[in-house]
């Protein structure tokens, strides 16, 4: 990704982002709300196509109109967008077929994956009746069903219970070890700190930090990723804000 710039109307959301990613990396992609994380991911997925700069994935410029590179990409969006009046089975099969896999193979794989995630008893129910965690599991399965080489995960653990979180984290580590590249966006710093090989911090549409957790720690002061994050984004008022917030909460309402 070279000099990526994107405007929404007159507002610039990305300014000259340069990024090179290698195989087998888990990249923790972090930044404050509105920093441009989702926009970058959407550009790479071809959901947004009027940007400036060059974006190449698997050595192919994605602006050339050929969408076949998406066959090797899996995506878990932040908002759980699903066709909710389909059953889990119908949805996963559909997605698998869009990725060009034979329906029988998708069904076989999906059945096994559903079982492993413990949602096999709702496999034939409509997604609209699912809990948040169940929906998230369907999203994760459908992002992996075609064995992609590159994964974009946006808050993939949201809504999952503690046990499932452990399973998914383990899955990600295993996939990375097998040479898959994972773009992991999240606001939960503890998780990012633990699973990422490399951390990229975006703020105001600019790349602010790029390196392993250890490298970031060397450059900045000691502490957790959360503290580094606060420091790099120039934020140190959390206590004052919290105090004032509570005082507003407790103000008389009648």
């Amino acid at each position, binding site marked *: 990704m070279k000099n990526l710039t994107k405007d929404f*109307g007159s507002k610039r959301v990305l300014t000259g982002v340069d990024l090179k990613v290698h195989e087998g990396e888990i990249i923790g992609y972090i930044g404050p709300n509105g920093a441009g994380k989702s926009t970058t991911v959407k550009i790479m*997925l071809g*959901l947004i196509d009027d940007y400036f700069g060059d974006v190449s994935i698997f050595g192919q410029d994605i602006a050339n109109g050929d969408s076949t590179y998406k066959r090797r990409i899996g995506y878990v969006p932040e908002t759980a967008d699903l*066709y909710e*009046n*389909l059953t889990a089975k119908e949805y996963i099969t559909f997605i698998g077929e869009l*990725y060009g896999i034979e329906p029988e193979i998708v069904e076989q794989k999906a059945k096994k994956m559903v079982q492993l995630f413990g949602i096999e008893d709702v496999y034939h129910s409509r997604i609209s009746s699912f809990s948040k965690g169940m929906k998230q599991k369907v999203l994760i399965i459908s992002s992996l069903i075609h064995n992609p080489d590159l994964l974009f995960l946006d808050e993939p653990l949201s809504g999952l219970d503690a046990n499932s979180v452990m399973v998914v984290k383990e899955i990600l580590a295993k996939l990375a070890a097998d040479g898959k590249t994972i773009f992991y966006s999240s606001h939960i710093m503890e998780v990012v700190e633990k699973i990422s090989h490399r951390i990229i911090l975006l703020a105001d549409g600019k790349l602010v930090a790029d390196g392993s957790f250890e490298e970031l720690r060397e450059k900045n002061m000691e502490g957790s990723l959360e503290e580094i994050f606060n420091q790099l984004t120039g934020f140190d008022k959390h206590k004052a804000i919290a105090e004032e917030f509570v005082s507003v909460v407790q103000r008389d309402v009648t």
Partner: protein
Amino acid sequence: MHDFKTLRILDSFQSLFLKFGINYPVMRKILQLKLTMDRRRVPTVFNDFGKKKEDDSNQFIKSLWVYGLIGLILIPFLFITDSYIFSISIFFGILMFILMTSMISDFSQVLLDIRDKNILSSKPVDKRTINAAKIVHISIYMFLLTFTITAIPLIVSLFARGILFFLLLLGQIILVDLLIVVATALLYLLILRFFDGEKLKDIINYVQILLSASIVIGYQVVIRSFGIVDLDIIFDPVWWHIVIPPIWYGALFELLFGGNMSEYFILFSVLACVLPFVSIFIYIKSIPAFERNLEKLTNQSSSKKKGFSPISRWLAKTVCATREERTFYQFARTMMKNERQFKLKVYPSFGFSIIFPFLIILTELGTRSLEEIGQGRTYFSIYLSTLMISTIILMLRYSEYAKGAWIYKAIPIKDTGAIYKGTLKAFMIHLYLPMFTIMSILLMLIFSTNIIWDIIVVWFSSSIHVIICFKMVNGGRMFFAERFEMAQQQDGWLIFASFLPLVGLFGIHFGLSFIDYGTIIYGGILIIINFILWKKVF
């Protein structure tokens, strides 16, 4: 998932789609999915699970038979033989009128839908295929609709006019269908191209109003193009007839069966046959632009600081008795203002409401002068525009974001009546009143200000009608609490039934207007009834 017959028919056109660079197997898959989803309805927040049986049947198809009945009015035109240009133009005029209206109000949202962009576009599917799926999805329904309307007339034509006539008619009907779907899409493309973000959303709604109005006017123009002299129908083709598509189709019949070789008829016939294909070609070329511009609908242009103006605050305070009521008044107002799907469904009926009363006056202009009309009672046609109340109150039940309706249950609301009252008042003040005012001013220009009492009576009748509709059509269900997909066709009957009390109100008003002071006294009674109803009903 079900394998649909329609898709199997579509399979025979596979090579055509492939030629246009559309990935047919993928498009078929998407269509199969969409058709499956059309058959299912999402349960609402308030429906307990398992309470309603999950019914797997398409509501749209269930409602089609009504259109079959409408189609019967087309039959007489097949028997007018001495002037093909007249009979066939009217035939297509009516057909296109029905198809265009349903295209604008029912299928616009499918065309402008971007909700599943995240799901589909992140997969290896190109834009052209996604868009083709959209167009074909709409076309399937349009063809079904057309088929039900024209099936019986077509069979009649086969026996009455012979196989050639039948085949030509069938071919033309298919062409008209294609033309309507693609022309609407092209129109939206044009608008999407020139406008941006927030403004675009508003413009689309205005375009809908304009379109529905122009369909009605266009239909009138078709009829008026024919002068009836001594029961003989005379038609003189003029250059501006070129903008009226139904006449093109009439011209082709006139040319082939009537043997009328005038230059205009040849030109119109060529247009009838060629234009649908030209527009399809242009559309396919511009699909990528269409999809890209659709994105503008999601763009949030920087949020303006929007608050309620002092006037609207004052208004809310005056019309709403309690604070709770006021809260829901403001809530409903913002919902109606911001919900795109609601506007897409409701605004076309605005267009019709404004046009219909004046159509009646326009018709009268054929026999009388404007001054003579001004002496008469045609202003009662304003009652026609009150018909939209039923539809809109029904639509108030739905919301794209119906999931948010849990707040009704989670928040301690003392008086649920306040929810209803506030919402209905918001509808009356912010949607109905502006239209009503415009209508009244226009009518007063024609009929002088003497009709002001009548207009006041109509306003209070409308207000009573709002409550009747709410009871009949809505049946005490929560507002903005069901998804639009839940809209059921039997509601159509309820709306129809809710017109009856309105006819009664109109009848009393009309009758009393012949008595001195009748209108004024009636107005007074209506105000009292209003006062009681708004207090007691909720």
